[in-house]
C-alpha cells in the first residue's frame, strides 16, 4: 500500500517537473487531472510526511534494528572487557528507541543473558564482566515503546589484557613534550643561561609583609590550605612556607601555622626547621609554631578566626587548597587590618580571595611561587618550561579553532576531518 502512494507521488513529481515531455494526450490529461486533484493534497501530505519522517517514520511499530554490530576486545585495558559497537538504529533520533540491550552467551545458540543496557543515542557498550579465557557471543536488541528487534548473533569475541593503554597515547606524547620542555629549560638554566621572569606582585609583597609584622611586633599567620598532603596544592603551600620561613628566621617575628591535617603538621614542622637551619637560626625554631587543630573544615576555621581576633596577626598567608572557609578567614583577617596574601588553585575560592585580600596568586601562580621565591636558576627554568606548555595549548586551540572556522565558511570536508583529528588528539579517555 505505501509503495503505491510513493509510486503516484513519484509520477506526479516527474510530470510536474517535465511538462514539455511529450506524452499521449490522454495520458497527459489524466496526469493533469491527477495533478489538479492531488497536487495540493500531495503537497500537504508531503509536508506532513517530511515532518513526520524526521520524527517517527513508523509510529507505533517496533524500532528498526541497529546495523553493523561488532564485538571485539576493549583496547588498552587490563582485560575482562569486550567492547560492542554498532551503527544507531535509524529510529534512534526519532525517539522511538528507548535503548539497546546487550545479550551474551557462551555458545552461538544461547542461552543468551542480558549483560547491560546502553541508552538511546549511544553506539557502544563495554561488557566489563568477561573472562579472558572464554569466547563470547552477543546480540543487540533495540527496544522501544512499540516493541523490540534483535540483531543476528555476533562473535566469537575474547577479551585480553594489554601492556600499553593505547587510549592514553596522546597523554603520553603531550606529557613527554611538556616534561621535555620543563627538563630542557631546567638543564639550560643550570648551565647558566639567563632567564627573564616577570614580576609577580603578590610575591614581591611577601618581604614587605613580613617586615611589617616585625615592625608592629605582631605575629605572622600562615595557613597551608585545609587539604592533606595528597593534594598537590598543599605540597605547593608547604614549599612556599619553606621560603617564607627562611625570611622570617632573619627577623624576630612570631610565626603561627595552624594545620587541619596531622601529616601537614609533620611536614610543615620539617620544612620550617630546615628553613631556620639554613638561615642560620636553628635555635629559634620550636615545634609550637605548628599546631594541629582539627580535620573538620569549619572547626578549623572557627579556631583560626579565634586566633586572628585574639592575637591580631599583622600578616596572613593563605597558600594551598581552600573551600568555603576561605572567605570566613579572609574577612576576619581583613577586619583586624592584617595584610593578606593568598594563593590557591581552587577556582571557586579565587573570587573571594581577590575580593578580601591584598594580593592573590591565581591558580598557576601558586605553583610558580616557590620557584619564584627560591630565585634558583633551575627552579626558574621550570617556569619557562611551563610557558612552553601554554604555547602548545594555545597553538593547539588556535589551530583547531582555525580548522573548524574554515569548515564553517568554506564547507569543505577536509577542514572538518582535519579539525576533528586534531580535537581527538586531546580527547580524554
Amino acid at each position, binding site marked *: 500500500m505505501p509503495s503505491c502512494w510513493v509510486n503516484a507521488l513519484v509520477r506526479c513529481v516527474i510530470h510536474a517537473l517535465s511538462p514539455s515531455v511529450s506524452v499521449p494526450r490522454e495520458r497527459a490529461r489524466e496526469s493533469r487531472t491527477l495533478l489538479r486533484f492531488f497536487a495540493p493534497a500531495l503537497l500537504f501530505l508531503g509536508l506532513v510526511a517530511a515532518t513526520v519522517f524526521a520524527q517517527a517514520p513508523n509510529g507505533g511499530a517496533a524500532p528498526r534494528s541497529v546495523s553493523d554490530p561488532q564485538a571485539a576486545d576493549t583496547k588498552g585495558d587490563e582485560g575482562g572487557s569486550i567492547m560492542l559497537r554498532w551503527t544507531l538504529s535509524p529510529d534512534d533520533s526519532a525517539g522511538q528507541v528507548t535503548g539497546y540491550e546487550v545479550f551474551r552467551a557462551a555458545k552461538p545458540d544461547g542461552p543468551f543473558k542480558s549483560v547491560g543496557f546502553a541508552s538511546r543515542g549511544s553506539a557502544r557498550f563495554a561488557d566489563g564482566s568477561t573472562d579472558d579465557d572464554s569466547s563470547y557471543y552477543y546480540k543487540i536488541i533495540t527496544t522501544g515503546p512499540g516493541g523490540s528487534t534483535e540483531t543476528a548473533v555476533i562473535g566469537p569475541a575474547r577479551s585480553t589484557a594489554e601492556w600499553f593503554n593505547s587510549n592514553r597515547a596522546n597523554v603520553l606524547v603531550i606529557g613527554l613534550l611538556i616534561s621535555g620542555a620543563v627538563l630542557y629549560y631546567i638543564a639550560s638554566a643550570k648551565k647558566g643561561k639567563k*632567564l627573564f*621572569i616577570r614580576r609577580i606582585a603578590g610575591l614581591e609583597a611577601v618581604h614587605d609583609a613580613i617586615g611589617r609584622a616585625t615592625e608592629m611586633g605582631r605575629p605572622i599567620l600562615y595557613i597551608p590550605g585545609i587539604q592533606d598532603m595528597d593534594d598537590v596544592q598543599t605540597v605547593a603551600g608547604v614549599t612556599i612556607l619553606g621560603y617564607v620561613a627562611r625570611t622570617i628566621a632573619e627577623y624576630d617575628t612570631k610565626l603561627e601555622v595552624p594545620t587541619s591535617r596531622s601529616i601537614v603538621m609533620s611536614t610543615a614542622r620539617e620544612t620550617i626547621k630546615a628553613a631556620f637551619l639554613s638561615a642560620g637560626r636553628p635555635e629559634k625554631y620550636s615545634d609550637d609554631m605548628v599546631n594541629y587543630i582539627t580535620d573538620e573544615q569549619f572547626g578549623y576555621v572557627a579556631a583560626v578566626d579565634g586566633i586572628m581576633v585574639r592575637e591580631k596577626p599583622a600578616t596572613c598567608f593563605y597558600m594551598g587548597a581552600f573551600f568555603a572557609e576561605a572567605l570566613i578567614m579572609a574577612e576576619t583577617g581583613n577586619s583586624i587590618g592584617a595584610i593578606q596574601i593568598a594563593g590557591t588553585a581552587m577556582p571557586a575560592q579565587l573570587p573571594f580571595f581577590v575580593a578580601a585580600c591584598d594580593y592573590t596568586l591565581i591558580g598557576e601562580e601558586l605553583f610558580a611561587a616557590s620557584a619564584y621565591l627560591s630565585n634558583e636558576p633551575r627552579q626558574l627554568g621550570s617556569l619557562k618550561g611551563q610557558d612552553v606548555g601554554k604555547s602548545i595549548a*594555545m597553538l593547539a586551540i588556535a589551530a*583547531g579553532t582555525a580548522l573548524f572556522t574554515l569548515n*564553517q565558511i568554506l564547507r569543505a570536508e577536509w577542514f572538518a576531518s582535519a579539525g576533528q583529528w586534531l580535537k581527538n588528539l*586531546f580527547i580524554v579517555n
Partner: protein
Amino acid sequence: MTEQTVERRAIWYLLGFLAVVLAFVLSMALKGFTQQGFYVTLGAFLTLSILSFLYKDNIFYKMAEHLFVGVSAAYWMVMGFWSVMVPNLIGKIHPPAVKPFMPAIASQPASYWYLIPAVLGIMLLWRLMPKGAWIARWALAFIVGTTAGLNFIRYMASDLLGQINSSMVPLVVIQNGSLDIMTTISNLVLFLGVFCGLIYFFFSKEHKGVFGVGSKIGIWILMVTFGAGFGYTVMARISLLVGRFRFLFDDWLGLLK
C-alpha cells in the same frame, strides 16, 4: 586591679553565668525536659553562640569554638578508625581480627600488600621517639612522591587535554546559509577569553606591546570570571543562613507553620 574590683567583676561574671544557665533551663522548659528537648536547645544555644561572633569575639563564641575543635577532631578520628583502619588495614592484613565488628569482611583472603602503609604509618610516628626522628621523612617522601605522580597524570589527562579539546570551536557559525550571530559572538568571546587568559599567565615574557594588550584582556576575562563566581555564590551562602534561621524559628521556637 584592686581586690575589690576583682571581687565585683567575679560577681558580675557569676551573675552572667547564672543568667545563661537560667535561659537554657527556661528554653528547655519550653521544649519539655526530654533528651530531644535538651539536644534542640543545645543546638540553638551553640548556633547563637557562633552567630554572636559577628558582633565581636566573646566567651560564648570562644566556648563554642573550643567545643567544636574537640568534638570534630574526635569525630574524624573515629571515622578514620571505623571506615579505614578496621576494614582497610586490619581487615586486609588479618581478616579474622575484625570478626566482632564487621563479620561480612572477616572471611575475605588476607592481602599482605597492606603491610606497606602500616610500616609507613609507623615510620611517621617514629618522630615521637627520642632517636631517629628522621625516619619519618621516608614516609613523607613516599606521600609526596605519590601525590606528585598521581597528580601529574590526573591534571594532564582531565584538565589540560580536556579543556584544550573543548576549546576548539568554530569562530564563525553558519546555520542554514545564514550567520548564527549569537553563537558566533559567544564562540569569539570564548576563544579570545581562553587565549588571552593564558597570555596573562605567561611568566617568561614581559607583558608589553601586543602581549601586554593580550594580558590586559586576560585580566579582564579573569575579573569577569571572579565577578560571576562571586555573584553566583551569594545565593548558596544565603541558603545556609536560611537553614540556620529555620532551625531557630521552627525546630527550636516553633514559629513557622
